[in-house]
């Protein structure tokens, strides 16, 4: 492999600042890597090669002219295909958007462009971010770089696979029920769901507006923090954006330390019933935290077991409303004939995949008169109880930990037509989304059964995102020392051929 694609974003940034390498070289190396392996990984739906080269030359010119440039200048970033981008299609993994070219740019991609980051392409995802495997994409699944027969997780699976396969050092994703942390965990990389409202949703195609949270994926904790910092901050274009300073995540990532930190293990998310190899790695990670000076206690969150059913009422309800806009009238696919209503129904039937149809109908059911109180209303109350569980826990500890996922990456096809089995992939990540808190997944080793990566999830209160990085950086440093190399060096899916 070309050395440039194995370097971290922080290393690339330093090398470019020192004049050792140009942004054009860095971009070309990653485009070469995409050309070499993406026919097997299928992480990208669109590669913006020409635009990336032009932007890289611009960065080099600005640097040569002595302009002050930020840490992401010249660094390639892969973008989940639900951020609207001018000059590139935005499909959201759906045939209903086809080759839609949005007329406006998302706040976050605009911030990245302003920072000189190179948007190298748009990544595959479960249609409208509904899924945990990318198998719900209208354009076929992506493949896990550890084992190409396995899913890369989802819905931000293309972004996770692109980073794990060294096609980009960083990627943007979104997390509604675990869609950043779960693919990061099963691809052996780092992924953060920031505090809800900490990152702008303007120009992010909506799935469940009270939950959708854009966030970063990277190969190291520091890289992930660098992207987190640049993408975050108040946006007047998003009325749910929080008007508060961005937590000092980069500073925290540079100073990993858990000495004296109070860490709670969520009782309900440990023990039997989950994949033994994942639980073994989790237990080791907790022991590691203790050996680094953390005070570990067990904390019960009794309502977390209702998070999954509550989520599968709240998210589909919001989706059924949000996705009403795809009606074949103003943009995207139009098919069928007759009245406007006939055309809408024909267009939506032809353009949406099975999971999106399931969720729209489930949400329509949960919101319909006669069922509203028993389903949507009840789920909203459960949401309150989960927030209360978190509040009680954070009264006793600084962060909570759990495995990021109940299992490692599963085979492509295994759960594709078994919705309930697929939903369980987000069992441990959903409570954080319902509460609007922040959480990260950081690699904690390989499961003995299958040699595939497992992630440690760290959860923090709202706007305490920096705590996640302080803990994750300590875990990363200690594990790398134990393993003698970063976990991804063990990924063999692309070398065995």
């Amino acid at each position, binding site marked *: 492999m070309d050395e440039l694609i194995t370097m971290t974003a922080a290393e690339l940034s330093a090398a470019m600042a020192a004049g050792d390498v140009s942004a054009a070289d860095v971009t070309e190396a990653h485009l070469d890597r995409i050309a070499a392996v993406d026919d097997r990984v299928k992480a990208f739906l669109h590669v913006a090669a020409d635009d990336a080269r032009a932007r890289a030359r611009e960065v080099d010119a600005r640097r040569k002219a002595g302009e002050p440039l930020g840490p992401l200048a010249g660094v390639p970033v892969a973008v989940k295909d639900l951020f609207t981008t001018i000059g590139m299609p935005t499909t959201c993994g759906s045939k209903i958007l086809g080759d839609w070219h949005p007329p406006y740019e998302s706040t976050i991609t605009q911030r990245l462009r302003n920072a000189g980051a190179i948007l190298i392409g748009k990544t595959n995802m479960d249609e409208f971010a509904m899924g945990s495997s990318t198998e719900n994409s209208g354009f076929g699944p992506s493949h896990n770089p550890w084992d190409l027969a396995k899913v890369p997780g989802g819905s931000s699976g293309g972004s996770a696979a692109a980073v794990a396969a060294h096609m980009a050092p960083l990627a943007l994703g979104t997390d509604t029920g675990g869609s950043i942390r779960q693919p990061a965990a099963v691809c052996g990389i780092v992924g953060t769901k920031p505090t809800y409202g900490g990152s702008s949703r303007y120009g992010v195609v909506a799935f469940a507006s009270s939950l959708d949270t854009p966030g970063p994926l990277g190969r190291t904790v520091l890289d992930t923090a660098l992207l987190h910092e640049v993408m975050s901050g108040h946006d007047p274009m998003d009325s749910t954006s929080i008007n508060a300073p961005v937590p000092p995540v980069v500073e925290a990532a540079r100073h990993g330390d858990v000495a004296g930190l109070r860490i709670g293990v969520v009782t309900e998310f440990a023990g039997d019933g989950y994949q033994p190899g994942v639980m073994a790695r989790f237990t080791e990670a907790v022991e590691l935290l203790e050996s680094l000076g953390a005070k570990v206690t067990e904390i019960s969150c009794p309502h977390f077991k209702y998070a999954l059913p509550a989520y599968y009422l709240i998210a589909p309800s919001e989706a059924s409303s949000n996705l009403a806009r795809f009606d074949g009238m*103003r943009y995207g696919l139009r098919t069928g004939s007759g009245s*406007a209503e006939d055309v809408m129904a024909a267009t*939506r039937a032809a353009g949406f995949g099975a999971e999106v149809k399931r969720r729209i*109908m489930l949400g*329509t059911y949960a919101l319909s008169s006669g069922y509203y109180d028993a389903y949507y209303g009840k789920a909203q109350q459960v949401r309150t109880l989960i927030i209360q569980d978190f509040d009680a826990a954070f009264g006793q500890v600084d962060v909570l930990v759990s495995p990021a996922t109940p299992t490692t990456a599963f085979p492509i096809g295994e759960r594709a037509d078994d*919705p309930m089995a697929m939903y369980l992939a987000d069992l441990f990540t959903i409570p954080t989304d319902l509460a609007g*808190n922040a959480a990260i997944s950081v690699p904690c080793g390989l499961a003995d059964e299958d040699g595939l990566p497992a992630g440690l999830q760290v959860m923090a209160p709202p706007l305490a995102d920096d705590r996640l990085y302080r803990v994750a950086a300590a875990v990363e440093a200690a594990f790398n020392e134990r393993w003698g190399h970063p976990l991804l060096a063990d990924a063999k899916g692309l070398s065995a051929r």
Partner: protein
Amino acid sequence: MSITRDEVAHLARLSRLALSDEELDHLAPQLDQIISAVAQVQEVAAEGIPPTSHATGLTNVFRDDEPAPCLTPEQALSGAPEVELQRFKVPRILAEEP
């Protein structure tokens, strides 16, 4: 059974999804299984617990009503399936007068 095939067909109509018989046959038992599972929320004793619709606690967020650049008609219409006279052209919406 928590939901019948006829009810699923009704939901599809409400959702503006023209599903085939095969799709309904496939989706109905899946929706039945999902609804049975999510009904678990009804076990929770939540008397007097206020609902949460979103987590930030923000309400009535306004910004100043100041003119600013916005999409041109050409940009707004750029993805339209059909355009006429600088407008979205859509199929007939109302039934013809008797």
